[in-house]
Each structure stands twice: as C-alpha cells, then as structure tokens.
C-alpha cells in the first residue's frame, strides 16, 4: 500500500463533496468519499458503468488498495485510465463541442435505463481520448428519483446548447465565451445574442430564450420546489428535444483566413512534397513520444507524426481549420491526433478559482517535440515578436524543434508586409539562427526544393 499525501490534489477538484482527484507517484487517482458510497455502488453494480465503458462513453477504472488521501471521509480509491492530454471546451471546434454534447446526452439516456441520472453536466467532464469524446467524471451519477427534474439541465444548456447555438447561428468565434464564463454561457446573454429567427426553433425557443428570460425575470420569485415534478416521459422528452436540437445545429467551416490556406500558397507540388519528406525524416531522427504541431492548419503535417503512431496535438488559431482537421480525424477514424484551437500570441491562461481550476497551455506542456512550420513569420512580423522571445517560447515548450524559416523575399512574407511598414530589419536568416542557437543546438538544416524556405531540426540545450 502506497502512502499518498494531500499535496497532489488536482486544483479543479474541490467543488464536489463526493470525492476528489489526486496525483501520486506520477499516476492519477480518484478518491470516492463515503457520502457517495451508495451512488458509486449503484453505478458499478447496476451495470451502467460496464455498459458505458463498452460503448466507449466513459473512462475505465480499477479500484486500488491505495491508502486514502483523506482517510476520514474515504470509501474507495480508483485509478482511472490516463487521459493523454487535457483540453478544454474553449479549445474545441464546433463539431468537437457538438460531439461532446451528444455523448453527454447519450450517457444521460443510458443512465436513465439503469435507474440513474447525471447530477453534473459540465463540458469539462468530457475529454477527447483516441479521437472520441469520453466522460471522465465517475462521481457525476446519482440515483434517479421518479418524478424529479433533471438537476443538470441548466448546466447542459449553458455548457453545450447555448455556445453551439451561438456558433451555429451567429459566429463560430463565440465559442470563446466559454473561456470567460466558466460555468457556461449565461442563457439570458445567449438569448440576446442569437438572431430572432432562432425563436422559430422549438429547442432554442424553450431551452434558451424562454429559459433565459425566465431566469432573468423570476430571479426574485419564491416557488415551492418540492411540488415540481417531471415525469419519466417528460424527462425522456427533454433529452430527446435537446438531442434533436443539438443534431440540427450545423456550421459550415469555409471562407476563413486559413481554412483554404493550402489552396492559396506559393508552394509548388514538388516543394510541398519535399517539405513533407524532410519533416518525416526529422521526426524519424527525433523519436518523439509526443508532438505539438503549432500553427497546424488542417493538420497535413501533424498527420506525418500521428500516422507514425505518435500522439499529436494539432493547434491552430482558425476555427475553420480546426473544424476541418477534426472532421478529417472522424472520417479517417484517427486515434493519435487531437486538433485544438489556440492563439499562440494569447494562449489559454489558467482560469477559475485562484487561476488554477483550468490549466494554462504552458502548464500542460512541455511537449517532447514541436513542429513550427510556416509559423515564424507570423509570430515575428504579424505579432512584432523578436526572435529571442520566440526562441525562448519554444525552449519552454519542447525538447526538440522542427522549425521552418521563411525569408523576407518569400511571397507569403511579402503579403504580410504589404499592409504594414517594414520595421523588421532583424528579420534575417542569420539573426534567426543566431538567436535560436543561444537556446538550441541546430542539428540539421535543409532548404526546401523550389522555394527559399529552410527547415531546421534543433534540440534544446541542456542548460536551458
């Protein structure tokens, strides 16, 4: 029996009295408190957990004989399967959030069949594992009391329905509201932002517009909550209504800045092929255990890594590119690649209580290897970031770096300079190499045939 300490309790795991998540010797565990004993036993003995695991809807776990982190309230300790990379709803594309919503409703429907219900419908309870949305919170189930309303209904509307409706009917960038509102988009706000035509959708009229207005209008009204009833048929009706409403929400990812990047580039087919070949060779040399592709666009180069079986996170700033990337993952049934939305000039910060509930992107690193292809000129010229700072960022993000230098004469750089004054006198290959060499060993460099671009393979220096 190992002896854990409380020091490893995960910062976001403090709200639910049913238990908490903690780290011990590099493994993650969940303590189940005695207060949750009855519901946990019901989850396991009813067959619900087994059924959800078989459908790939919940993470599997095993009960372990580990001394409890808080023995006075402990019932059991379980070791759930490890989630390879924690991502957050504000980093997901439209279809990722939609997939997470439908998985949550499927779990709720299944739970009802086994006499249980979800008491918590936070989007943070879903993680993407092997390309699919999977529920990770074993403590979110409770016994279904016949006639009781669904306590997680509002949370579902705020965490899933409202942002999806806004992304579908207004603008996909409104998914970023989830970064500001930790408990989901307030329904009165969603109602104000949605176009009038959404009043003609039964799902959005009831679950967002009327729901949001009632919250605002009757917030100081007193009501006998004990008399509120929701029949099982009513419960099923609400799940069905939400399910069909979510399924009807669509977003077509086209016409954004980067969505059509590869159709609008200065590469010849030969140069593009040569670049792929060099990246593949560099990745072979690195033997990376995981890769972050920064500025991945639709993930063409990420797939060079993921197709080799390397777990790869494919970041891009453009919601359309991330959406296309995710749809491609689903189409090909890929399990090693996770597309995520990220603006590297303003990456996800630590948010929530004490800025620790949701980790910053930096806290979730470093990666073993980073691909930074056709990225440097955007950071340097579009964001006015000196090479020294860019090199510093990469040194804190990875061990090995595959980076592409795009010279000023390149048409893509010229395009960036067309709308701004050229104050970038230090934007030269020599300055680039000199600054990066302070933090990295420049192991290999190779020009891309038919272009003026150069690919580098670098390793972080021991001292950094």
């Amino acid at each position, binding site marked *: 029996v190992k002896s854990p300490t409380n020091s490893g309790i995960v910062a976001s795991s403090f709200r639910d009295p049913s238990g908490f998540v903690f780290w011990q010797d590099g493994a993650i565990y969940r303590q189940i408190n005695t207060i949750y004993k009855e519901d946990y036993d019901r989850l396991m003995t009813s067959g619900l957990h087994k059924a959800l695991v078989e459908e790939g809807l919940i993470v599997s776990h095993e009960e372990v004989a580990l001394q409890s982190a808080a023995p006075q309230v402990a019932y059991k300790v379980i070791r759930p399967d490890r989630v390879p990379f924690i991502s957050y709803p504000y980093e997901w594309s439209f279809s990722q959030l939609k997939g997470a919503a439908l998985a949550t409703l499927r779990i709720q429907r299944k739970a009802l069949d086994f006499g249980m219900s979800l008491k918590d419908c936070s989007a943070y309870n879903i993680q993407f594992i092997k390309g699919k949305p999977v529920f990770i919170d074993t403590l979110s189930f409770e016994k279904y009391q016949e006639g009781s*309303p*669904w*306590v997680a*209904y*509002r949370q579902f*509307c705020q965490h899933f329905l409202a942002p999806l409706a806004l992304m579908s009917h207004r603008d996909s960038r409104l998914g970023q509201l989830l970064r500001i509102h930790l408990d989901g988009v307030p329904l009165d706000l969603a109602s104000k932002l949605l176009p009038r035509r959404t*009043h*003609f*959708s*039964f799902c959005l*009229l*009831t*679950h967002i517009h*009327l*729901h949001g207005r*009632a*919250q605002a209008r*009757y*917030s*100081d*009204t*007193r*009501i*006998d*909550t*004990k*008399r*509120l*009833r*929701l*029949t099982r*048929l*009513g*419960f*099923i*009706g*609400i799940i*069905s*209504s939400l399910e069909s409403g979510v399924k009807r929400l669509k977003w077509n990812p086209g016409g954004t800045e980067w969505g059509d990047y590869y159709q609008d580039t200065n590469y010849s087919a030969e140069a593009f092929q040569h670049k792929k070949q060099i990246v593949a060779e560099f990745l072979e040399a690195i033997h990376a255990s995981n890769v972050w592709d920064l500025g991945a666009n639709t993930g063409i180069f990420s797939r060079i890594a993921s197709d080799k079986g390397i777990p790869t996170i494919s970041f891009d700033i453009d919601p359309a590119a991330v959406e296309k990337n995710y749809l491609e993952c689903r189409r090909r049934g890929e399990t090693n690649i996770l597309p995520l939305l990220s603006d590297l000039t303003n990456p996800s910060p630590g948010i929530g209580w004490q800025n620790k509930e949701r980790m910053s992107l930096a806290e979730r690193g470093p990666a073993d290897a980073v691909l930074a292809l056709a990225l440097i000129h955007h950071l340097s010229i579009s964001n006015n970031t000196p090479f020294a700072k860019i090199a510093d960022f990469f040194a804190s993000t990875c061990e090995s770096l595959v980076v592409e230098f795009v010279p000023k004469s390149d048409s893509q750089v010229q395009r960036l300079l067309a709308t701004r004054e050229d104050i970038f006198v230090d934007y030269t290959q020599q300055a680039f190499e000199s600054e990066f060499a302070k933090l990295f060993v420049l192991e290999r460099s190779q020009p891309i045939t038919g272009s003026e671009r150069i690919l580098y393979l670098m390793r972080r220096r021991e001292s950094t």
Partner: protein
Amino acid sequence: MMKRSMLPKTLIMPALLYLPFHQVVHAYVDGGTISLVIQSAIGVFVGALVAIGLYWKRIKASVKNLLSRSKKSGEPGEEPH
C-alpha cells in the same frame, strides 16, 4: 421559414411556461430553481409528445395487424375447404 409542425409547439409552450409560477411559495429561487420550473413545464409538453409517439407506434401496429388479418381472411386461398 417556420415549419408547419413547429406552429403548435411555439404557440403553446410560452403559455405553459408561465403556469408553475402561480404555485405556493416556500424557497428562495435562484437561476437553478427557475431551470427546474422551466423543465417541469417543458416536460409536460414534450412528455406528452413522447407518449403520443409511443402510443402512435402501438396504434399503427395494431391497425396494421387488423388490416393484414382481414386481408388474409378475405383471400380465396386462405378460405377453409
């Protein structure tokens, strides 16, 4: 354009949603409680739809059954010798 089938739903629902607020008062209401009220009201409506859907399937099946029986009994080949 609003679908024809949506009309009854969109007209009836607002009326239904205001009913529960005339209940006796006991507890202080926050946003979460309002959500319980709202879903209780929506539940009445969508629950009825689910019930109709379930019964409709059964009615359809029984009617089909009846029709096929009468059809079979009307067929010459099926008549007793």
